[in-house]
């Protein structure tokens, strides 16, 4: 009984010092599809990566806070996302860069 109590106490103490190990993914590419729930990005290797977005996703453009509406097809993006239990990626931050069109006009 005493052993069980000690084991339980140890587990409680140890668990409070454990850090979660994440598996954050950085997705870099050009937006090819955007909706209220997700954004699809084409990477340089022509792979398409779909990332879910939620109300907790933080958007920024040129270092300043932005809104989901600022995201358009053709924009360069860097997305920091975490895989969910179902394997889909959920965006934590979406950084919006220059658009393809504006690059071509430069």
């Amino acid at each position, binding site marked *: 009984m005493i052993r069980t109590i000690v084991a*339980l106490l140890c*587990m*409680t*103490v140890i*668990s*409070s*010092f*454990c*850090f*979660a*190990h*994440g*598996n*954050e*993914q*950085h*997705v*870099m*590419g050009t937006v090819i599809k955007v909706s209220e729930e997700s954004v699809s990005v084409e*990477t*340089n*290797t022509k*792979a398409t*990566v779909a990332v879910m977005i939620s109300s*907790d996703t933080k958007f920024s453009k040129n*270092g*300043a*806070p932005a809104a989901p509406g600022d995201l358009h097809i053709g924009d*360069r*993006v*860097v997305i920091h996302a975490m895989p969910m239990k179902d394997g889909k*990626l959920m965006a934590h931050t979406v*950084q*919006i*860069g*220059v658009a393809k069109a504006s*690059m071509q006009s*430069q």
Partner: protein
Amino acid sequence: MRKRTLLLSITVACVAAAAALGWVTIRRGFSARDNPSAIETLVATTARQMAVPSQYRQLRNPLSSSSDLQAGIEHFADHCATCHANDGGGDTLFGKGLYPKPPDMRQKETQNKSDGELYYTIENGIRLSGMPAFGEEHAEAGDMETWNLVLFIRHLPNQTAEELQQMEQLNPKTEKERQEEDEEQNFLRGGSTKSSKPKSHNQ
């Protein structure tokens, strides 16, 4: 005799209930991803509040200048943001995995604490949580770096986007992370990139 039987029955019922609760808990397993129950939170917060010595509770922050706030911003970004996040919300990789989770310090549960309570918490930490004691043992209540942090915590509800941006530059980063960040920023500005496969970050 009746009284004794009643008392015995209540004791047996309590022990059985505790055993059942313990069994269910052990079967379910312990995960730091869980949130403490309401009872656990009430007991822990009450005990913690009672454990702050009254001479600390009454302390007022001696600092208030903008340079003190700036020092607090820099210190927090470098030392505290890994768990608490730059905005004090606790939404970080480490913060989300702690048990208990760091509180959202912009909310009244933190903001209603006295300056002295915040100072005492930073200096002495919180037992059985991820919050370490950052103060020296037997130190007087005159650690100005800690008072800078208290000033910053008070400022959290009014934090600006510019301050958040500045803090991101001050967060601790490895050489590899800095290189990767430069590569990402270059890509966002229209530059080329070596590889754009999704990169995994095991931390």
